């Protein structure tokens, strides 16, 4: 049985929300998005120094707060709600959780303290063509030269790949699948920003040409199986926050927008759409939270819960973002209104890291359908 959020959790949510309301308003989001930046450096460091957000799910021995997927989910839900421009998903959910999942102490102590401090931006690149966390899609090749490894291949759809100080890369070392850390500025690494839909998050193509790499000593297949679930749940939480924010935005607007002599929110046609969205959003919140709880407890239901949360939260966010534009009418279609940022974030995060169709297929497999 899943237990609910504790008072501590509510406090974490409140603190994070207040911080982001001040430091990451939609005006600031827009400014960063239009300037092409991947973060506000000062805010990024305050997140780490004042709130310890980057270290939330990192063990205390590496300078983190020692919490897990549930607490990370709370933070991501708030970041998603605020549409914060920051390499948090990549650094903390992708790279951070990969390192905490693996057992290689050298790799952990080399990178986790920097991530917790906010000093290191990192990301993860698994399947070469699709960017999914799917070992079957790994085609990059690693060759050893004594202690060193060199990797050659092209990783597409690497989230925050351009700004990353370190990329965890999956490659084939002979018959084996293995994970490596590659420094962003290492020789043989060429990173190109991808012109893509979401201006609030950067995506790169990373070319590796005999790039110097350090092997993470662990069973990469097992690590990635767990990481795929953790990342699915983390992204689901972020999407839930985005969905809740768009619903709030839409509801607030329908209360003040008067047409035919009354607020449009008093029309049933509008109310019913908002009530249906609330049903989806509440379920999304419970899906993401339940999956995080089950993964924390190593419950056998964790993986299927993660897959269903990934599918449900992604489609809910996109639906809510589209409805938000519709409920705003003409203004919602303009560049000057913020609604489109959510639509772009929603559609992009729906298609990166595995589409809903892929996650649904996984639910079917795991549930024995």
């Amino acid at each position, binding site marked *: 049985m899943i237990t*609910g959020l504790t008072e501590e959790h509510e406090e974490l949510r409140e603190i994070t929300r207040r911080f982001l309301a001040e430091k990451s308003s939609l005006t600031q989001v827009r400014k960063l998005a239009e300037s092409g930046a991947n973060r506000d450096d000062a805010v990024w460091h305050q997140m780490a120094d004042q709130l310890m957000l980057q270290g939330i799910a990192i063990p205390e021995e590496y300078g983190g707060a020692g919490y897990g997927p549930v607490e990370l989910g709370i933070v991501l839900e708030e970041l998603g709600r605020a549409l914060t421009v920051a390499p948090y998903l990549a650094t903390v959910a992708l790279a951070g959780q990969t390192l905490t999942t693996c057992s290689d102490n050298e790799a952990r102590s080399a990178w986790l303290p920097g991530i917790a401090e906010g000093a290191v931006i990192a990301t993860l690149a698994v399947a070469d063509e699709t960017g999914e966390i799917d070992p079957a899609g790994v085609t990059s090749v690693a060759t050893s030269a004594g202690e060193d490894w060199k990797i050659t291949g092209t990783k597409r759809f690497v989230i925050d790949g351009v700004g990353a100080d370190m990329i965890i890369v999956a490659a084939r070392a002979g018959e084996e699948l293995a994970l490596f850390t590659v420094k962003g500025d290492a020789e043989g690494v060429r990173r190109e920003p991808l012109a893509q839909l979401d201006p609030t998050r950067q995506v790169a193509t990373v070319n590796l040409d005999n790039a110097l790499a350090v092997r993470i000593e662990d069973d990469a297949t097992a690590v990635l199986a767990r990481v795929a679930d953790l990342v699915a749940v983390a992204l689901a939480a972020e999407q839930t926050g985005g969905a809740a924010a768009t619903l709030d935005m839409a509801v607030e607007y329908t209360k003040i927008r008067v047409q035919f002599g*009354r*607020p449009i929110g008093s029309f049933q046609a509008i109310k019913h759409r908002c009530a249906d969205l609330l049903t989806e959003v509440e379920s999304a919140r419970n899906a993401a939270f*339940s999956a995080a709880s089950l993964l924390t407890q190593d419950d056998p239901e964790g993986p299927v819960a993660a897959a269903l949360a990934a599918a449900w939260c992604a489609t809910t966010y996109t639906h809510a973002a589209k409805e938000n534009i519709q409920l705003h009418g003409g203004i919602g279609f303009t560049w000057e209104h913020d609604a489109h940022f959510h639509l772009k974030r929603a559609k992009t995060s729906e298609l990166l890291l595995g589409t809903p169709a892929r996650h649904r297929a996984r639910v079917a497999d795991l549930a024995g359908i």
Partner: protein
Amino acid sequence: MTVTSEKHALDAETDEEFRARLRDFLADSSPGPRPKDPGEKVAWTKAWHATLVDHGYAGPSWPREYGGMDLPFARQVIYQEEIARARVPGPLGTGLGIVAPTIIKYGTPEQKERWLRPMLRGDLVWCQGYSEPEAGSDLPALRTTARREGEEYVVNGQKVWCSAGVIADVFFTLVRTGTPKSRQKGITYLIIDRHAPGVTVRPLKDLAGGAVFAEMFFDDVRVPVTDRIGEENEGWPLVRTSLGHERAAGAMNQAATYRRILSELVDLARERGLTVDPLVRDRLTDFEIRVRLIRYNAERIISGILTKGEPGATSSVSRLMITAFEQDLHEFAVDMLGPDGIVLKASDQAVQRGRWLQGFLMTRASTIGAGTAEIQRNTVAEQVLKMPYDPAMPPR
């Protein structure tokens, strides 16, 4: 065993021991196969509920003095899960969830004594008499009148959509004691004996061909004032009384029931070789996702009650989710069966006694009964999202 030692035994028991004890009891005392004959089915169901009460396994949230178990909330949830798992018949009529909390909260000691335990045992079957032909979603527009004459009310009017009206012994109704325009300020809560002179019950044949519902007509029916719950003209707030906790624990029963129904549907699809069809598989996956969400939502509602004393926003929307789910599920089942989907339960060629077609028809009511989905959406929008009232609607 004395009551005291029983209570001690309960306190010493762990949740898992309680679950095991309940499960054993349900397995050992299972009422056997459901009779086909409607009259026999009623007797069979009543006997089962009497057995439950007599062995101390009924009314999980109810005080012991009325035959209940007085369980802490977490145990009520376990109780509901095991009841769903055991596939035993639910109680007859509509009394337990609706009128019982009202009697517990507002009834006189004499009324509690007279009605509660017989309701739990199935000795008295109860039926709801709220809706009227012109007063369904707009309940405060009801027109059935009750005129006070000494120690009696004289009731005249008509009620409709009374579930279990045909087999019921008692009706709990709302009647107008105020002026015709008094709306919710002139409504009184009355309990009416089905066998009182002037009461006529007419079965209302539903679209599935059965008669789950009835219409009731009151023609100068005399009701003792002692059968009124609460004060005259103050019946309206009583309608909203419900044991929120019991409903929340019931959400777990629903989640477990739908889990079982979906598993049976997946088995059927597999037996017929349909799960290799990607479209069928994806639809089944959609139900798989939703049935798990229904469970997670129920858990969230319950944990909200356990930690904060209130169920939270999820409880307002979970009914919308569940009603859509059960309609979609049954329609898909019928579609999946192809021509076999149209075979009525009366035919010996019906797949699984025609349950999927029957479900497809009967779940049409789930977005209508107990307040339509449209009214439910209005309520969610206004009360949870705080959207403005519709000026075209009467004031509340």
